């Protein structure tokens, strides 16, 4: 099902079957070039598959933007150990709602992408780790898996090749941290989703301590197109080093929020104005959070930018998960900063001190600040605590909490100071420690 009107500016690659009748069924899939790429992959060497991926400049769509071909090339192919293909469908980055659509509308495309990965490293098992809140998708994907088994694309001796491959769905149960790949693997093993020490990286020691290809739903979903049409053709859709298209999830104060598939490197302002119909109610743009809530916000004047990994990194933000929150001039940035840090405090796994205590402390200060009891020292303190977290935590969650907070308070310092002017700080006596 689709929840917003598509845009005529879209370039539909992974969403090409969206909106078709019975888009989830294998018949529809087979009728629209489905399972063509895996047949092709069957005839290719692992090196050739990986070369094709490298040529496509496909980069991980989960957030980090790591080149997929290179990631696959790190997985030992003849270790003698089993290896696993894991799909990260634990979509949880605030602002992001695309993997849900891929599973809901075209599960076979994902299955085929995982099959190709499986073939590449001679794996026999794959898991789709779906966040717990997406329960209805488990049913949809399970149905698609059953169809794929029935048609001989999964199970024993796939397409007469002698190769066996199984895919299972696995549900999460509510934890943002499990989107971090090693935390996801812990969770898959039935444990708390605490990230692992790296190295070793999942490519070498991943699921069940074995070599693992672990990619985002959208990344796997793009793989069939890469093999079907060739890496260079896919790459040509985007900008150099940022191949293909990606699904942009646009939320907030635009007239037509929605999920749109556009070429990598699509200009942000065209996305806002041409795809999404501009800022609603004729308001002015204030800021954009361009890649999920952990990406540092861009002020309106910084928004003349291309939406690809490198351009946004250059602007000291990130393309992240492709979730864009568009904020208009009436937005209370302090409220957004508070809501953001509340989220990270809630989702901090608690493993390391700076993230566990830092997010909680920041949440407490910002709550008080937002409630009108800010103190003059709060602004530099928020800044310094964010700095004390940044780069010092066990995993990227601490950075994910620190980066947006730092961006809010440096780019919109005037708003924080305005809050302070309205504040009525409580009588400043030291509190008694609770013993």
């Amino acid at each position, binding site marked *: *099902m689709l*929840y*917003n009107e598509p845009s005529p500016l879209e370039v539909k690659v992974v969403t090409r079957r969206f909106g078709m009748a019975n888009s989830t069924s294998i018949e529809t899939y087979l009728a629209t070039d489905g399972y063509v790429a895996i047949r092709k992959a069957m005839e290719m060497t692992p090196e050739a598959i990986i070369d094709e991926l490298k040529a496509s400049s496909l980069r991980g769509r989960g957030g980090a933007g790591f080149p997929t071909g290179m990631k696959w090339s790190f997985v030992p192919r003849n270790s003698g150990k*089993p290896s696993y293909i894991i799909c990260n469908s634990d*979509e*949880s*980055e*605030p*602002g*992001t*709602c695309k*993997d*849900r659509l891929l599973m809901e509308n075209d599960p076979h495309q994902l299955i085929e992408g995982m099959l190709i990965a499986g073939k590449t490293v001679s794996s026999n*098992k794959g*898991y789709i780790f779906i*966040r*717990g*809140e*997406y*329960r*209805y998708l488990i049913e949809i994907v399970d149905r698609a898996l059953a169809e794929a088994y029935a048609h001989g694309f999964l199970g024993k001796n796939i397409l007469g090749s002698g190769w066996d491959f199984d895919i*299972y769905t*696995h*549900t*999460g*149960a*509510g*934890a*943002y941290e499990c989107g971090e790949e090693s935390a996801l693997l812990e*969770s*898959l*093993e*039935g*444990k*708390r*989703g605490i990230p692992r020490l790296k190295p070793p990286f999942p490519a070498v020691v991943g699921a*069940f301590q074995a070599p693992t290809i672990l990619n985002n739903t959208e990344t796997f979903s793009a793989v069939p197109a890469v093999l079907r049409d060739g890496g260079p053709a896919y790459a040509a859709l985007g900008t150099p080093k940022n191949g293909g298209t990606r699904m942009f*999830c*646009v*939320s*907030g*104060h635009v007239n037509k*929020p*929605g*999920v749109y598939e556009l070429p990598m490197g699509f200009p942000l302002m065209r996305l806002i104005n041409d795809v999404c119909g501009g800022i609603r109610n004729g308001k002015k743009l204030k800021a954009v*959070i361009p890649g999920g*809530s952990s990406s540092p916000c861009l002020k309106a004047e910084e928004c003349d930018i291309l939406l690809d990994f490198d351009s946004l990194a250059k602007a000291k933000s990130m393309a992240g998960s492709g*979730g864009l*929150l568009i*904020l208009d001039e009436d*937005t209370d940035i302090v*409220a*957004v900063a508070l*809501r*953001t840090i509340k*989220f990270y405090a*809630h*989702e901090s*796994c608690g493993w390391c001190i700076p993230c566990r205590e830092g997010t909680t402390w920041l949440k407490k200060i910002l709550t008080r600040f937002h409630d009108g009891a800010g103190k003059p020292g709060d602004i530099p303190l928020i800044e310094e605590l964010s700095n004390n977290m940044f780069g010092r935590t066990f995993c990227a969650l601490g950075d994910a909490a620190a980066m947006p907070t730092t961006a809010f308070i440096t780019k919109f310092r005037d708003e924080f100071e305005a809050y302070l002017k309205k504040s009525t700080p409580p009588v400043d006596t030291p509190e008694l420690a609770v013993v």
Partner: protein
Amino acid sequence: MLTGKSMTFSPALEERFAKLLTSYPPGRTRSAVVPMLLYAQDEVGFVSRELIDEVAKRCSVTPLQVDEVIGYYSMLHRHPIGKYNLQICTNISCQAVGAEQLMEYACRTLDLKNRETTPDGLITLEEVECMGACAWAPAIQINYDFHHKVTPERFDQLMAALRDGSYEKKAS
């Protein structure tokens, strides 16, 4: 604390569990802990002590290993909740389009605070983190059903439907 007693579940769930236990590599039944807890919770209502022991037994882990997991995952809860788990996302995308006001509206009209249940046990209200419906905000979930672009009017209709039993399991 492994007791001799064992729990039984509906045939559909038992079938699901049987499949789960064979889904993972040999000796990795611990992997089934989280899914089993969540699926069982959906049927039983909450994660009871008895359920912890049962899952521990079925997955060949200790009750402590199950216990550790429950505290970690926010969807698992140790106490019964209402028939309908009403979850309102207030994360930034939803916040931008009035989710906090919707949450206040829900509190006021249902006479509940966050994480409280109506006295008739029908509805539990919970403010939650991003549920993956950002582009169609503000979003809520009733049990596992998504409802997008929820206005106060739409909210009232949904609550009325919950109350008069006409609520249909249907994602909008």
